[in-house]
């Protein structure tokens, strides 16, 4: 196992061969006995079949990334073997489906007849269990863990439950026995202390939706688009109940204008999309900023630009999230870096929108949306359902008179006004007066100061050179950071998911640094650029392959960049 603390296995084959189920089963059984797990799957753009893989990482410590070096690869077909064999670490093991193809003995692979063995138990779907049994042998896992999992999983109150359980347990045994005939051994999985906290197993999109639910989202309108669709589907299913409204829109233009309507009408309103949808919403987002309407746009980033890479990960929408439209506007942006943070971001984004009365962007990523992880059960009761200040006075109210935030009238109640996307006077009527445009522009920006409660991480704050990833690159960057520390190479560590407005104290610290290294998944180094525009000496480490950072890459590139800075050769 990598560093003797975790175990990474990838299941690869053709869509439909059961890779995802196998990974999920292993994940669940490991989580049930107390391990930290993370799964990650990629799918091809075609609907049925196509090369698919699922990966799981099991550890006795919280898992920070899906990991780049495999301990084991399960290759369901030749193509999968060819594609993924290189990712297996020295000393790792490959189990391949010998019904599909044969390999010469290479000292690290062995074949098994998954289907045949599975079917021999009388359950044609037990092939997966054969695979899991073999893996269990390799890491010397107690048979009991998997048996228990099988019993739980297949106790469904149906007449043939027992029969199925028996067959699956038999299949586990067959896999174990098969692997035992080889001399392969991956050492023992580290022991665990069973956590005494409650856990849930969720992916990033589910966590965002749950966070939004916890903060009391009222209205959700969205248009399907990968990798955000699952949020819409979750809401369609679950946002039920009095005064709630959820609907599939006819386009993202409809989504943004509809939630602006709902936000105007007093509701906590949200949509979810990916880059192409965010681009299409541009004009509507500018409108919400201008009218001071609370709403949240979740952008689950995928590879861009344009239709781009719908099933790959990237962090290249930062710029348009911050400045989505023409004119002077810069939006609050929250970019969670872990599944847990997705929950928080789902809640805080809605609360921020209400608090400052304007649009907020929640910037997630494909990588997080497709990652399942066991996390401590989010504290729903602890989430505040923050609501805008509502105007409750008499009529004749001047909604836009004050030079900063003012209570918002809600239709049906007193204080009728016009929410106007043209520049407007205190009652919301159109005006072109220079003094009014100055007043209103300053009013709109002044409200951002209300959002200065973002938290951040700060470690080794005295170091002149610091690492500051954002979003989903937090995991690999942190692993690299820890590894470098272990090697005696020391930097400071900064991290926040509150990208805009940046917490004041954080920004003040960053300005003191000689170099802020920003690993980010885009070409332009978008966040580092932004930091430089704020007066921070930031430099990006970029990657634009559609894949997450590899920890080993970062371990090389971070010290390289730090060194080149010392020699004065950094870009800007």
């Amino acid at each position, binding site marked *: 196992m990598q560093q003797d603390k975790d175990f990474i296995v990838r299941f690869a084959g053709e869509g439909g061969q059961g890779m995802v189920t196998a990974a999920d089963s292993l994940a669940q059984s490991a*989580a*049930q*006995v*107390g391990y930290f797990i993370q799964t990650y799957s990629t799918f091809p753009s075609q609907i049925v079949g196509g090369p698919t893989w699922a990966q799981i990482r099991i550890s006795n410590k919280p898992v920070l990334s899906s990991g780049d070096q495999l301990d084991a690869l399960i290759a369901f077909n030749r193509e999968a073997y060819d594609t993924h064999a290189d990712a297996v670490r020295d000393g790792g093991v490959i189990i391949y489906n010998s019904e599909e193809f044969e390999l010469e003995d290479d000292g690290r692979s062995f074949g098994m007849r998954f289907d045949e063995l599975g079917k021999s138990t009388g359950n044609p779907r037990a092939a997966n269990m054969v695979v899991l049994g073999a893996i269990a042998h390799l890491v010397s896992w107690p048979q009991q863990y998997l048996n228990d999992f099988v019993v739980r999983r297949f106790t469904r109150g149906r007449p043939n439950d027992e029969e199925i359980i028996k067959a699956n347990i038999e299949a586990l045994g067959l896999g174990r026995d098969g692997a035992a005939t080889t001399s392969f051994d991956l050492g023992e999985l580290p022991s665990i202390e069973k*956590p005494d906290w*409650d*856990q849930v197993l*969720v992916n990033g999109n589910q966590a965002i939706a*749950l966070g939004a*639910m*916890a903060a009391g989202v*009222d*209205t959700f*309108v969205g248009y399907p688009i990968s990798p955000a669709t699952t949020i819409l589907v979750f809401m369609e299913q679950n946002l*039920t*109940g009095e*005064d*709630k*409204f959820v*609907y599939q*829109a*006819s386009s993202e*233009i*409809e*989504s*943004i*204008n*509809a*939630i*602006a*309507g*709902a936000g*105007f*009408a007093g*509701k906590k*309103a949200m949509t979810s999309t990916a880059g192409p949808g965010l681009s299409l919403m541009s*004009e*509507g987002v*500018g*409108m919400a900023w201008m*009218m001071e309407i609370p709403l949240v746009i979740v952008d689950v980033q995928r590879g861009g630009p344009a239709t781009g890479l719908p099933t790959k990960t990237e962090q290249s929408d930062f710029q348009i999230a911050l400045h989505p439209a023409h004119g002077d506007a810069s939006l609050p942006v929250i970019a969670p870096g872990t599944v847990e943070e997705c929950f928080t971001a789902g809640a805080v984004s809605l609360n921020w929108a209400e608090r400052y009365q304007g649009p907020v962007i929640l910037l997630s990523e494909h990588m997080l949306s497709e990652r399942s992880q*066991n996390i401590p*059960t*989010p504290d729903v*009761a602890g989430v505040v359902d923050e609501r805008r200040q509502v105007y409750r006075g008499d*009529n004749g109210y001047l909604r836009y008179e004050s030079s900063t935030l003012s209570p918002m009238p809600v*239709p*049906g109640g007193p204080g*009728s*006004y*016009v*929410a*106007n*996307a043209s520049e407007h*006077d205190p009652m919301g*009527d*159109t*005006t*072109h*007066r220079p003094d009014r445009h100055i007043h209103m522009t300053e009013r709109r920006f002044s409200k951002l100061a209300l959002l200065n409660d973002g938290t951040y991480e700060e470690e080794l704050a005295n170091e002149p050179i610091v690492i500051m990833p954002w979003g989903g690159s937090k995991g690999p960057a942190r692993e690299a950071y820890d590894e470098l520390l272990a090697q005696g190479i020391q930097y400071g560590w900064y991290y926040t998911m509150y990208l805009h407005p940046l917490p004041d104290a954080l920004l003040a610290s960053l300005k003191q640094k000689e170099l802020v290294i920003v690993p980010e998944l885009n070409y332009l180094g978008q966040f580092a650029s932004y930091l430089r525009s704020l007066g921070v000496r930031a430099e990006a480490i970029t990657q634009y392959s559609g894949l997450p950072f590899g920890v080993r890459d970062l371990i090389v590139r971070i010290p390289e960049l730090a060194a080149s800075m010392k020699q004065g050769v950094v870009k800007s």
Partner: protein
Amino acid sequence: MTTKNPEYDFAWCPGCGDFGVRRAIEWAVERRMDTLGEVIENTVVVAGIGCSGNMVHLLEGPQPFGIHGIHGRTLPMAFGIKGSRPDLNVLIAAGDGDFLSIGGEHIAPQAQRNLNVTAVIMDNGVYGLTKGQSSPTTALEVITPTTPYGKMEGALNPLDLYLTLGATYVASGISSKPRDLANLIYDAMNHSGFSMVHVQSPCTTYNDTFEALKGNPRKGIQPLAWNVPDDHDTSDKAAAVELVRSYGVPVGLLYQDPDSVALDERYAQIMSKQRTRTAQDLVDSFAFAVQ
């Protein structure tokens, strides 16, 4: 706005058709307040961008809530408002360019949903606010600043379109008859479903069609506008289609679906059967016990 607002600097040109439409809307809303005892703050006027859209600032008397957003997006905003707040009365006021050109994509979805709002479209066959360019209802061969050699495309028939897309209330009005128009708007607001009131509201500056609509016997001009016959069966859609495809501009109620079920009714009915899920329930559904 109730009183003349010194900062507001737009005014319709003398004679603009939109004055008549304003009167009609004011009357219809006031009648609604009288008969239903509804407070004015329960009404939201969602306006398009154009001379017509300035309606939201120019309404006199009791002041409803208003939205003056971006060009072409009245319907999706109305959808968000009415979807999330079925208790509100939502009235759209937009022009032919705003509603039928840049906003054209939004009509079909709302008609399919039978969204319970009323849209008053001020059709002047031109883009007024941007100074006279052609609109979807400008006729073939007409010369405008953007069609200096004559418009090369035919005019859209909006009434036909609304009927085909399934609007459940379709009426045609004319701004020079504000009393009749007020009645159509009032009935449209009472209709439970997607209600279109399409109004001929001539632009006296760029496309003055008053004479063409009303006719001028002395010049031998036959009126384009004619009243929907008294015996027209307004529940008969095929008959309505025939009227709007026949000639000129039939004025009056063309169609009202007696069986209309609006989105809010359907939504409430379906959702009343669903269990309410709290955030805690949902979080718990992802829990698993550590053994």
